[in-house]
């Protein structure tokens, strides 16, 4: 059995910004190795782990994708040894001032992302909401050293170390979406002792935060019968509208909306109720903001669903998740996969 909290904490300390997932992929590969029958890496860098089912060939397959890439920053200028940055993925610039970061230069350099004093900014810029183009990374090094060690295009990651908080919760950056990779790993663990007739493709996808490029191409290559995106969703926290958020620690969400096949939704909901796995229904009226959006329209189209893990303070260095929600999401996936039979695809119909 994988020590999930330890694995998750290791993942939170591994770099893996969108498009540059090699370090995090290596860690997941090492952990999945004993849990799957086959591992390969896609042209776009996604990790595919295959667990073969026991049914007769050709077997249907289910793809479960959890994106492993993280949001971050990239160096786009050097001003006297202070680095200018741009964002990779969606960032609120108000989160950035005075955050610890790691500049992945010729070697990893710790530094601080700072908001310069107001007197050094344009007159129309408000302190406290300074656009990202005026923020600077200070590595504490001399301008000569910075010139030698850092180039435009180098990546910059959040450096907040993970830590445990009350109520069996964990704080760290990149819990979006390493929490879901952990849930998928819980699922793989569970399936070690559970027979399943379908093939399972466990996919740690790339570039979700930017283009959904990883899941789009993996779904095409692997051409599953069904696809599940596991991703984080908004947990209730101060200032958030209650109708768009879900309580932390009260179970994963099962998503409903145009990216979701209604029959697949019903199957997941019924299964969760049957196994008394607590969950909430999440509605996404348009884009689900997950890999499911991409996978649904791959090739001739794939029935998709999203399983959400509630997370507070998404896209900040202090994201918070409840470990219980991760294990529940993993168990829900495992129960669903174990219950898939030869006839399941016959139920994926439109009951108009």
């Amino acid at each position, binding site marked *: 059995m994988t020590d999930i909290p330890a694995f998750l904490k290791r993942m939170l300390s591994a770099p893996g910004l969108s498009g540059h997932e090699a370090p995090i992929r290596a860690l997941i590969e090492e952990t999945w190795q004993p849990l799957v029958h086959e591992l390969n890496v896609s042209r776009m860098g996604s990790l595919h782990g295959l667990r073969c089912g026991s049914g007769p060939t050709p077997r249907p397959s289910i793809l479960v994708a959890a994106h492993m890439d993280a949001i971050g920053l990239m160096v786009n200028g050097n*001003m*006297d040894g*202070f680095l200018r940055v741009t964002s990779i993925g*969606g*960032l*609120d*610039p*108000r*989160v*950035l*001032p*005075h*955050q*610890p970061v790691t500049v992945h230069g010729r070697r990893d*350099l*710790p530094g*601080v992302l*700072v*908001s*310069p004093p107001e*007197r*050094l900014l*344009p007159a129309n*810029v*408000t*302190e*406290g*909401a300074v656009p990202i183009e005026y923020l*600077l990374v*200070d*590595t*504490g*090094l*001399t301008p000569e*050293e910075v010139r030698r060690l850092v180039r435009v295009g180098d990546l910059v990651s959040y450096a*907040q170390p993970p*830590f*445990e*908080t*009350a*109520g*069996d*919760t964990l*704080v760290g950056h990149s819990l979006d979406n390493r929490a879901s990779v952990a849930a998928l790993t819980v699922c793989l663990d569970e399936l070690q002792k559970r027979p399943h007739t379908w093939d399972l493709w466990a996919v740690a996808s790339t570039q979700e935060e930017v283009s959904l490029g990883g899941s789009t191409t993996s779904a095409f290559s692997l051409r599953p019968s069904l696809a599940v995106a596991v991703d984080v969703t*908004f947990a209730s*926290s*101060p*200032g*958030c*509208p209650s109708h768009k958020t879900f309580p932390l*620690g009260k179970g994963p969400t099962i998503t409903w909306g145009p990216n979701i096949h209604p029959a697949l939704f019903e199957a997941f909901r019924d299964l969760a109720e049957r196994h008394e796995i607590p969950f909430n229904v999440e509605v996404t009226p348009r884009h689900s903001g997950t890999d499911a959006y991409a996978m649904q329209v791959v090739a001739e189209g794939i029935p998709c669903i999203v399983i959400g893990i509630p997370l*507070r*303070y*998404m*896209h*900040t*260095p*202090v994201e*918070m998740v*409840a470990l219980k929600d991760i294990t529940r999401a993993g168990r829900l996936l495992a129960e669903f996969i174990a219950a898939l039979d030869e006839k399941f695809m016959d139920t994926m119909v439109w009951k108009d």
Partner: protein
Amino acid sequence: MKKTNEFSLPRIGATQIKLLEKLSNACAVAGDEGEVRKIVLEQIGPHADEVKVDALGNVLAYHRGTGEKRLRVMVAAHMDEVGFMITADDGDGFYRFDVVGGVDAYKLVGKAVLIGKEHIPGVIGIKPVHLTNAEERKRPVELEALRIDIGPAAGKVKVGDRATFATRFTQLGPSLCGKALDDRLGVATLIELLKNAPPHIDLLAAFTVQEENGLRGARVASFALMPDLAFVLDATPAHDLPTWDGSENARYNSRLGMGPAIYVADTSALHDPRLVRHLMVTADTFGIPYQIRQPGGGGTDAGAIHKQRAGIPSVSISVPTRYLHSPASIARLADWQNDLALVQAALLRLTPDLLKETR
């Protein structure tokens, strides 16, 4: 020890950096300086003739010199830091808080904090970017909207508990990075000075409280100590970053790597010209780099000390430090070294005649 023609000046080595690390990581919000006080008392015990903790929590240490007509020289450094106090329990692990000292609300967003004597970890979050609109992201976050979140569990944190940033001290090449370098740099320097106290003066070391809450500790400490003159050791902002358009930055206040910053004037005090001169002449004599802090806003314990009793000639000297009152400040090791060397040399060169000069 660096040998000079006349004197030996103490150096910052691994032991001193280790001590600064311990001091920087300790949590001591103005009014609750116990953690730093404990470290200070452990450190100075063997090096002082008398140590006292006064009614406000100041640590006052007395090192008696030898010889005739000794000057009573106060050297002050404040133990407290800016931080937070829990003001209400919103339930479910969320707490309202207020700031203690000057901390801008925008610096708190997305940060880890430590609460209370047990250092319970928590975070200050913000609504996810996905649920904001462009207009909202242009408005600075207000303190009222922020909460400390310790996770969904009740009862571990109490109203009235203090909290600090959770940043751990680290070295960045030639630089030092940590929370509360303002003024743990001064505290660490003062500990070294006490360990190397010159014999011809009475050294009155004041590790003060509540500097960030209105210079309150220094006020009573200087009354009690009755010094002839005072040196105040602090950290001063270094705004030595590039301007957004690359034009000359003429308002840097102080600059990293240029040596300790000597004060001439700030909002709190016009520093005694005799002492300012004394520091500059000392630095020139010993070849110690220094800079004049650009006159302007800001203040140090000297603001309270110089007006105490019938007046106490005072001067401040600071280690230039970037991003004061934020989760992570950055200073240069070389500036700290030169700060210690300059103050030690200035103490060694002190004579009662200095105060006979015209101001």
